[in-house]
């Protein structure tokens, strides 16, 4: 294992339980004020939606990431993709998740409000349309372009 990998693995070991818990809460809609207002995504459905975004994350990997059991670090783009697939996502939870992962999101309060507005409109779309928008959102949030084969 190279030095760089060791650093990444050590870092991931330190945060994987917290990140896993946060991702599980997002999937189950527990980050939203009223959990009943947002449906809980099943692990299988989340895995399927991540696959549509172009990320190979199986249902078993979803389960093990949530329990903090997987040694392989979850990349930033998969983490953001995961968050965008969750109905309970809100700007504050999103920012906190990225802070946990060591990524500072340079958003002002107005940006956070705008993101919440955007999420509200986005959740009213059909799943097919959500998938198309989600792929683009990755670029706008992180500058990551999803290959055109993986969506719309």
């Amino acid at each position, binding site marked *: 294992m190279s030095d760089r990998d060791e650093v990444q693995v050590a870092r991931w070991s330190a945060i994987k339980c917290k990140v896993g818990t946060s991702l599980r809460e997002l999937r189950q809609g527990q980050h939203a004020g009223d959990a009943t207002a947002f449906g809980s995504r099943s692990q299988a459905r989340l895995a399927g939606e991540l696959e549509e975004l172009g990320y190979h994350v199986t249902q078993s990997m979803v389960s093990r990431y949530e329990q903090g059991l997987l040694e392989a670090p979850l990349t930033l783009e998969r983490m953001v993709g995961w968050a965008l697939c969750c109905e309970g996502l809100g700007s504050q939870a999103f920012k906190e998740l990225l802070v946990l992962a060591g990524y500072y999101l340079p*958003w002002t309060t*107005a*940006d956070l409000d*705008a*993101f919440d*507005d*955007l999420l509200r*409109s*986005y959740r*009213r*779309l*059909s799943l*097919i*349309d959500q998938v*198309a*928008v989600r792929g*683009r*959102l990755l*670029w*706008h*949030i992180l*500058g990551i372009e999803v290959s*055109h084969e993986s*969506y*719309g």
Partner: protein
Amino acid sequence: MASLVPHAETTAANLARVIRLHTVPTNPWGPHQRASAARRLLEELGVRCDESAALHDLKGFLLSSPRGTEMVVSRDLTDEQRLEVYAHLIAHALLGPDGPELALAARFEYVPGRAPGERPAHELREELLADAVARAILAGRLEAAPRLIYCRDLGPGRGRFSRAVLRGLHRGSLALYRRSRSYQRLRSLPVVTAFTERVHSFLGSAA
């Protein structure tokens, strides 16, 4: 200042001009050429366009952020429909918020009859206004919409009094345009447009 699209006012004016030029009887362009010209124009002005998306309830959407603006249009649309979506999204850009840089925001264009039922009132109000502005763009006559929509700077004016009158008139026109469909139709009549242009020229030009 930036809105949902970089240089939204210039983009809207140019889009209307391109549509107007390509519909003159001596040089009529087909729908495909007009839609292509609109897309080229948008891309030249910094808007990424993708016309290959598989969408279901949407005809297209606009995403804007400090990283840029993109318009995504359904691959199932005809050329005329694509042009309409571009005009609509540009209309939304004119009506949307503006700030020192592009804001993180989205605007969705729904297939008729497939828009969600529980949309907020402000979104529905913007949609109605965007319809009217898009019609003005598609007619190649952006001036058929109130000036404050596509030009925030009203010019120096002849003096403080005429500037105040001018601003009052334009604000009143915009307020009426937001509330009344009859006024939208009236405002788009060539004779009314010409009259308002003349009043603006008189009061708005420097003494």
